[in-house]
């Protein structure tokens, strides 16, 4: 549902992009256009904030060649939802700077937002958030990934993430011996 909304907005964008100065038009690597509120973009993304402040926003669609359309759709979707769910003033005053703000547990809607993503979509979104300097979205997505690792054995984690074990048996044993307590099953 959220995705549909995102697509709808993208189509809207083509018609109203030039007229509407409150929004920013973003172009994905595969040429799709997305529109996002300028305020939300500036607030949630340090990179977009810098671009807006520096005047390097293209009304016809700012190229984000590193981000695929589906990831960008999720980014835009997240921005829109965020703008609706949290009063901007509270958010701004609560974080002195992104680097020093404490990690806050994802809110219910944020959990849902990442829970519905496929494995790949989740990682696409992490990378997009990283590229755009979206600290909060990084927190939420990294939290999701950490949840997928929590309490699992190395074998289980490898399975979930398709990690290839390139240790030799001896190396692995060494690691397990080093901090054996962490490898005991609960």
């Amino acid at each position: 549902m959220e995705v549909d909304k995102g697509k709808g907005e993208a189509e809207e964008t083509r018609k109203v992009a030039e007229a509407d100065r409150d929004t920013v038009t973003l172009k994905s690597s595969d040429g799709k256009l997305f529109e996002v509120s300028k305020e939300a973009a500036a607030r949630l993304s340090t990179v977009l904030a810098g671009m807006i402040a520096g005047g390097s926003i293209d009304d016809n669609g700012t190229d984000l060649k590193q981000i695929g359309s589906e990831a960008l759709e999720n980014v835009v979707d997240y921005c829109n939802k965020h703008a609706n769910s949290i009063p901007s003033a509270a958010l701004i005053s609560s974080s002195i700077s992104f680097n020093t703000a404490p990690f806050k547990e994802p809110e219910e809607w944020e959990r849902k937002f990442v829970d519905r993503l496929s494995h790949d979509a989740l990682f696409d979104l992490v990378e997009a958030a990283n590229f755009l300097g979206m600290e909060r979205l990084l927190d939420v997505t990294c939290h999701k990934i950490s949840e997928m690792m929590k309490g699992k054995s190395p074998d289980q984690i490898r399975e979930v993430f398709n990690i290839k074990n390139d240790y030799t048996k001896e190396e692995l044993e060494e690691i397990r011996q080093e901090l054996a307590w962490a490898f005991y099953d609960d």
Partner: protein
Amino acid sequence: MAHLLGASSLKKRRAGEEGEEIEAAAAMAAEEEDRISELPEDLRLRILTLLPLRSAIRTGALSTRWRALWERRWPAPSSMDLHIRPGDDPEELLRSLERRGERRIDRFSLTIHPNKRPLQHHRVRDPQRFLDYAAACAVEDLHIDAAGHFVSMLSTSVDINELLWACPRLQTLDLRYCDVLGFQGVINLESSGAHLRSLTVAECNRITRLDASRATGLRSFCLSSAQLPTYNIPATASLDDLYLSLRGQNCEPIKHWIQALPNLANLTVLTICSVALRLPSSSHDIFVDNSLEEAEEDEPNEVLFKVDNPDEELSEDDAPDEEGDEPDEELSDGYEAEEELLLEEISEEYMLKERLYYEDVYEENLSEENVPEDEQFEEDVQSEEDVPEDNQSGEDFPLYGLNNLVFAKLMNFKGHYFEMRLVSFLLRRATSLQKLLLVPPPVGVGNYMEAFGEKPLDASGFLDTVLNFEKASPDAEIILSDSDPAAIQPMHSVVF
């Protein structure tokens, strides 16, 4: 990066066609690509940071790309507990802090352990640098325990106020045994404002004033000093926890060294040590009263401390809060009467004798208050208001609510005049009192009495007197105990 993102978005689209609704847990299994190991290191560290330590350590066994990565993660609620012991090299510590960088710290605790051989200075040349580091990391809880060695080790350049301005997120400030902090002994907590939840200033005897007038969120306040610092905390602060131990002599005429405390309706633990019961007309302000007691209260009460000027005695009153909209007036009425009363009651001779006792009392350990933790407590210390010998003016005073006081304990109980008056007051007012525990000072501490030609404390003597006091609660049990019953755990476990 570009390549990676482009490739993955294609894959994403394929996954999308198969159904966006698929739970991530189900979708993850089929993929072949190791997306997580491809993430930049700082992102992987970010993920590891969110894991419990045990889970984080396990990732070291995943593959060579994960080996020991977890060691560099920074725990999310980061806490730093630094101890500088004799022989430690503070410079080395500072270097390791620099390597860590200025990432956020929630809790920063610096303990400077005393040197047993003071001639061999282990000098912490620039403690300010540690504190500045904590401030740069936007510390929330700041604890500094210098074990009384700030004077010798630290220059006066430690400016706690400057530090506090740099810590806008500060929620807890805990200063112990730091002698030189702040400009002219004033600690200004204006900058922390509403974030400040807990303020502890213990045995920082150079501090003469504590200004936290904007800390409306203050919940816990602990002030312990051999001096009599003034403090200013907002009247709207709703304290859960209050610990006051002010036992020094106040050489300077400070207008109001104890102000009216804020709303104490939510107070659950209150400890007061050696406050009040002053002898008027003595040349020094002497504060005695090692008596502490606790009460269980179901109804909120208000405890007010108010001294109009330093030449009058201190009174602590517990006024029923619910109807008492103007406790100040009520108090001051009671006050003047009390003052007169006291002057009448105490002869010069008596005062002299008491004073000898009390001056020694300062040297002893402080009293402590013990309260069962599962109960809600409010303490009421009442001084000078009630005179056991004759109740000539007792009826004139407002009846303060002690109806919920269940348990009271008085430490270092020596049965002297003011303590007996306090006991008498408690017994007469506390209608629900079940237990009154009187704990005499440990053997050997009372030697001063012999030094002044007094006989050692005869507990049975005052116990008889106590047992004859009028009791509002017929079931009240009075126990004279040498030992501290294990069942009664101190709520304020740390006593300064």
